[in-house]
C-alpha cells in the first residue's frame, strides 16, 4: 500500500514536471521561467538535506495542528449539530472564521497571541479544521433512528451517546475525512510558516519565491508531496485497522 502511494505520487509529479518541460522546450523558455533538468538536479542535490529537515519540522507541526483541529472540529460539530439557537450560533461563528482569508486575520492573531508557536499552530488548525467540521456537522445532525429509538424512549439518551452512535455508524466517512485532513494540516502549516516566516518548508518556499527560484519551489513541492504520501498512507492504514477492529464481521 505504502509503496503504491509513493510511486503513484512519483508518476504524478513526473507528469507535472514533464508538462513544464514540454512548455519550456516548445516555447523556448529560458531557465529563469522554467528551470532546466540540470538546474533541478543541482538544486535538489544542494538543498535536499536542508529542505528535508524543513519538511520534517513542518510535518511535526502539522501533526499537532491536525490533532488540534480534529478536536476543534469535533467540539464545534457537536455543539453545532443541534438546531437550537446556540447550535446555529456556533455554526455561524465557525463558518465565518473560515471565510476570512488567513492573511487578513493573521495580523489580528499576532496581536492577540503574540508571534510564538501558538499563533502558528492556530493558523494551521484554522485552515485544517473546517472540512472536518463540515463532515462532522453533516454526520452529527442526522439521527440513526433504528439505533437511537430505544435510548430516546427509555430516557437514556445523552448527548455523548448520541455523538457516539452517529460517529460509530459513520466511522468510514469520518476516517476518510480525518486522514484526508492531514493534507490540509500540512497546507495550513506551510501557509502559517509562510506568513509568520520563521522556520519550516513554508519559510523556505517564501524565500525561494522572493528569489523567483522555481527550481527550489519544485524541489520543495516534491519533498512535501512524498512526505505527505507516506504520512497519508500510514494514516489510512491506521484508519482501515480501526475500521476492521470494529466491524470485523459486519
Amino acid at each position, binding site marked *: 500500500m505504502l509503496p503504491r502511494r509513493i510511486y503513484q505520487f512519483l508518476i504524478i509529479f513526473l507528469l507535472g514536471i514533464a508538462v513544464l518541460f514540454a512548455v519550456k522546450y516548445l*516555447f523556448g523558455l*529560458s531557465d*529563469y521561467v522554467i528551470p532546466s533538468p540540470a*538546474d533541478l538536479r543541482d538544486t535538489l542535490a544542494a538543498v535536499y538535506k536542508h529542505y528535508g529537515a524543513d519538511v520534517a519540522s513542518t510535518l511535526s507541526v502539522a501533526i499537532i495542528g491536525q490533532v488540534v483541529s480534529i478536536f476543534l472540529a469535533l467540539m464545534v460539530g457537536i455543539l453545532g449539530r443541534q438546531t437550537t439557537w446556540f447550535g446555529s450560533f456556533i455554526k455561524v461563528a465557525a463558518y465565518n472564521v473560515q471565510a476570512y482569508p488567513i*492573511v487578513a486575520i*493573521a*495580523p489580528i492573531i*499576532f496581536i492577540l497571541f503574540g*508571534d510564538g508557536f501558538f499563533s502558528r499552530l492556530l493558523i494551521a488548525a484554522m485552515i485544517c479544521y473546517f472540512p472536518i467540521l463540515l463532515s462532522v456537522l453533516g454526520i452529527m445532525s442526522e439521527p440513526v433512528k433504528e439505533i437511537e429509538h430505544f435510548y430516546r424512549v427509555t430516557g437514556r439518551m445523552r448527548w455523548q451517546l448520541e455523538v457516539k452512535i452517529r460517529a460509530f455508524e459513520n466511522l468510514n466517512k469520518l476516517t476518510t475525512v480525518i486522514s484526508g485532513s492531514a493534507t490540509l494540516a500540512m497546507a495550513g502549516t506551510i501557509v502559517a510558516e509562510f506568513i509568520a516566516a520563521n522556520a519550516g518548508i513554508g519559510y523556505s518556499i517564501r524565500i525561494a519565491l*522572493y528569489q523567483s527560484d522555481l527550481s527550489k519551489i519544485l524541489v520543495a513541492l516534491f519533498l512535501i508531496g512524498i512526505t505527505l504520501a507516506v504520512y497519508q498512507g500510514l494514516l489510512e492504514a491506521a484508519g482501515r485497522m480501526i475500521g476492521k477492529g470494529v466491524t470485523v464481521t459486519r
Partner: protein
Amino acid sequence: AEGGKEQLTYRLKWLFNVSVMGDLYAGEMGFFEGANLDVTVKEGGPERDAIRELELGYADFGVASADQVIRALSKGSPVVVLAQLFQVNPLQWIYRPDRVEITQVKDLKAKTVGVTFGGNDETIMRTLLASQGLSEGDVRIYSVRYDYTPFYRRKADLWPVYVNSQGPIISWKLKRAGERVAFFDPSAHGVKFVANSVVTSVRMVREHPDTVKRFMQALLQGWEAAFKPENSKAALEVLSKYDRDTPRPILEKQLAMTRKLVKPADSVDIGTFDREAWQQTERIMLEQQQIKAPVGVDKVLIQF
C-alpha cells in the same frame, strides 16, 4: 495594426500606487497615443514577474527590480533593461529617533532589525553590515511578515518600508499618536542597490527597435511630466483615480517623496542608468551567492 495603433502590454511590478506614477501619467495623459501606441498598463503583484511574462509573450514591456534582472540574466533569460526608474532605492528602514539613534551603520549594533528573509532588504542589510565589518550576530534580526505590528509594538527597532509609498502613511499614523519617525537610507551609507527599471526582451529590441524607441520616449516623457511641479495637480488627479484607497494629503506627500527618488536633481533625467550602482548590485549578489557567476549586467543596459 488596425487603426494604425500598435497594441502593447506593459506589466508593472507592483499595485497601482505612487511608485508607478509616471507609467499611469503617460497612459492617462495621452503620451502613448501621441506615439501611436495603444498600451495596456497592467498592475503587478506579489506573484507576478514581468520578466517571465516577457518570455511567455503575456507582456511586451515590464518593470522589474535590478536583482530580478540579474537573476534572470544568470539563468539565460533574454532580457534587456531600457531605463532605471529609481535613482535611489525606495527600500529603507523606518525607526523612532526618540528611541534609537541611527546615523551610521555601526549604530545598528544590538538593535532589533526587521528583515524579510529572501527579500531585497535582507541582501541590502547584509551588505550594509558587512561593509562595516559587523557580523549578523551583532544585530538582532526580526523576521518580517505581512504586517507592521512588531514595529508598532516596539518589538523591532527598525522595520523595512518603501519610503515613498508606505513611508508617508506610517509616519502619518505614528504622528497622530505623537511619535516621530525617521528613515535609514542604505544608499546614504554606500550601498546602492538598484530598484525598479523598465525591461523588455532582446527580441523586441532587435525586431521592433522603432516601437521600443517610441514607447520609451513616451514613457519617459510621461514620467518627466508627472513630476514637473506645475503638473502636480494633474498628477495627483491621475494617481487618486488609480489609488482610491489613499487619502489625498498622503498622496501629496508620497508624490513629493517619490520625486526625490526618481529625480534627485533637475539635472538628472528620469530613466538614467547609474551604471556604477548596477555593477555594485551585481557584485553584491555574486558575493552573497545569489548568482553563481558574473552576468555583466552592464551589457544589457540600453539607453533608448
